[in-house]
């Protein structure tokens, strides 16, 4: 017995020592390295990418006109909310300065889009125009949630940009398709976005980029002004008004009416927002109620009590067909693609469109007002 054991013994000891050393090294590396993920659940978010945190951003020398203290950049529109969040309009920012700031932090932006069932047809134009106008010069990951991965078009992507197709469950009702986005986003945020990107931009797919949309929008939490309501009083906002709903907002409250088609922020903040909205929608469902504008109603409730750190002007969400091109908008950056709502929302079997009576969709409310 003993002699048989001896040769094994000799090999075993150094291998155990080696194993121990390896374990110690891994442990040490995992804990001590700044990118360590092991203790992610412990430290207050130190394990995830924190975009606006400790980065020391050193600008190199640049030439640009001097900002003038006594000359407001825009005199026709509000550029700062009462809680000191910038409202981003053309003329308020210098892209060169901002690009340098974000490039120095090696910022990666995730753009999420949902192309469920027939909506895959919008992907090509969306992605092609995004390649031209969205975050040029920065790292971008497109996250395409779809139930038809084969229908995702092959669009040529620039350097530092890639596309990730994610499987999404198709729901029968278009309202559910819209609302379940919140759930899918919050789950994906935890599972992959936290590790892959610094900021998330969540957009509707039936849109196209028409002009520059860049890092000026990036901040911990941002919402976009709905094109139909930016000049209207709060009583005219189509908030959910029934107290039984989680999305309820009283008549005398409300800053802006934000559009559900374009919002975002840092990954932790978007995760909080989508999780809260999803849970609110579940609560509503349990109480047998559905908010009047679905996920958009819940988004508005959330942004009322969790003020965004930046607000995007209607330049970032427009419908030229319905609303023209007013002079207050110097650029139209992200615009609706004309579509036949009835046609696109029709169930596959060719039956009646499953849309609600509001069928004309978002901007249609503007025409009605």
């Amino acid at each position, binding site marked *: 017995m003993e002699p048989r054991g001896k040769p094994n013994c000799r090999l*075993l000891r150094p291998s155990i020592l080696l194993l121990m050393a390896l374990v110690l090294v891994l442990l040490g590396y995992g804990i001590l390295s700044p990118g360590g993920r092991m203790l992610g659940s412990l430290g207050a978010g130190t394990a995830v990418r924190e975009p606006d945190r400790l980065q020391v951003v050193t*600008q190199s020398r640049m030439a640009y006109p*001097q900002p003038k203290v006594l000359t407001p950049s825009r005199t026709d529109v*509000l550029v700062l909310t009462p809680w000191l969040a910038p409202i981003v309009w053309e003329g308020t920012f210098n892209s060169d*300065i901002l690009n340098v700031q974000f490039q120095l932090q090696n910022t990666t932006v995730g753009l999420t889009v949902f192309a469920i069932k027939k909506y895959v047809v919008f992907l090509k134009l969306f992605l092609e125009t995004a390649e031209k106008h969205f975050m040029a010069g920065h790292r971008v990951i497109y996250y395409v949630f779809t139930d038809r991965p084969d229908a995702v078009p092959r669009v040529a992507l620039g350097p530092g940009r890639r596309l990730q197709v994610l499987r999404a469950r198709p729901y029968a009702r278009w309202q559910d398709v819209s609302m379940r986005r919140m759930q899918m986003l919050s789950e994906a945020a935890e599972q992959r976005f936290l590790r892959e990107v610094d900021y998330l931009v969540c957009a509707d797919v039936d849109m196209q980029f028409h002009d520059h949309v860049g890092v000026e929008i990036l901040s911990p939490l941002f919402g976009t002004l709905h094109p139909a309501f930016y000049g209207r009083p709060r009583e005219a906002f189509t908030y959910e008004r029934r107290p039984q709903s989680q999305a309820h907002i009283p008549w005398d409250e409300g800053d802006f009416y934000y559009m559900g088609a374009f919002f975002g922020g840092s990954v932790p903040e978007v995760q909080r927002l989508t999780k809260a909205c999803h849970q609110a929608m579940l609560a509503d469902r349990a109480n047998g109620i559905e908010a009047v504008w679905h996920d958009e109603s819940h988004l508005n409730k959330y942004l009322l009590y969790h003020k965004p750190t930046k607000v995007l002007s209607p330049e970032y969400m427009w419908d030229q067909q319905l609303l023209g091109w007013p002079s207050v908008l110097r650029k139209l950056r992200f615009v609706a693609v004309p579509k036949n709502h009835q046609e696109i929302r029709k169930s596959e079997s060719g039956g009646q469109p499953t849309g609600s009576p509001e069928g004309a969709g978002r901007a249609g409310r503007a025409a009605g007002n």
Partner: protein
Amino acid sequence: MHRKRLAWSLGLCLLAGASLWVLWVSVQNWLPVSYLPYYLPCPEVLSQYPQPKLLLEHRPTELLTLTPWLAPIVSEGTFDPELLQHIYQPLNLTIGVTVFAMGKYTRFVQRFLESAEKFFMRGYRVHYYVFTHDPAAIPRVPLGPGRHLSVIPTQGHSHWEEISMRRMEAISRHIAGRAHGEVDYLFCLDVDMVFRNPWGPETLGDLVAAIHPGYYAVPRQQFPYERRPVSTAFVADGEGDFYYGGAVFGGQLARLYEFTRGCHMAILADKANGIMAAWQEESHLNRRFISHKPSKVLSPEYLWDDRKPQPPSLKLIRFSTLDKDGGWLRN
């Protein structure tokens, strides 16, 4: 016997792992990383306030309210104090203030503190840090609840320029050593000043600078930057956003630490080359703010010179100079 050894080595492994863990935890506490939620959900208690008007009929303020890098420029009319109070109060923040009362400047402490008690961050926890060579000369000023004062003995210097330059070093050391456990935000203010109107959470930000009252209406070529290329504070002709005052700056501890340390290093480099910048640390502060732009800028309301007549564009002077004759003080 072999098994015993195995057990021993495994036990040692565990011990090593545990000690690394403890090391990490203690280092983590030291590292200036704490995620400060910028908001807290405040459901029903949100008070009614007027809806912000997006399309302007008239200008709310004559001043620029956003820098080209989208940092707010804070002045009266740009923010709703009550709304900000609702947002910031629940966060249970502690705001620190550093002032340097060296030499004859100890005589300014009384009025500084009394006015701060009236106007600075009312309703918040505040911690004053008074750096002085003469702790006995610091008067006992009654402080409100949740507000504390610490006197920090500091080595004096013969020249007031030297005192001024050493502030950056003292502040960065202070942040690393003590402030990081005690405050969330820190403001570094000149002591020969007085608060005249409310100074609240609208001033809080990651890295905050204030526009110098003497140069807000002046083209950048006339800013008193350090213009000698040999200095680390050198600013070329076409550079510069605003001329910031050295009497007011602040921010979140982590960012402020990087900033003050960077300034201190630049000052040391100049010293090694036998050069002192035109306006001492203010020159270095301005140089650094060009390459590390502030996330929030305070209008000259927050740093005013009472010798100047108040222009109509500034609605509310909040912090300004105490009337004094500078000459005899600097001996």
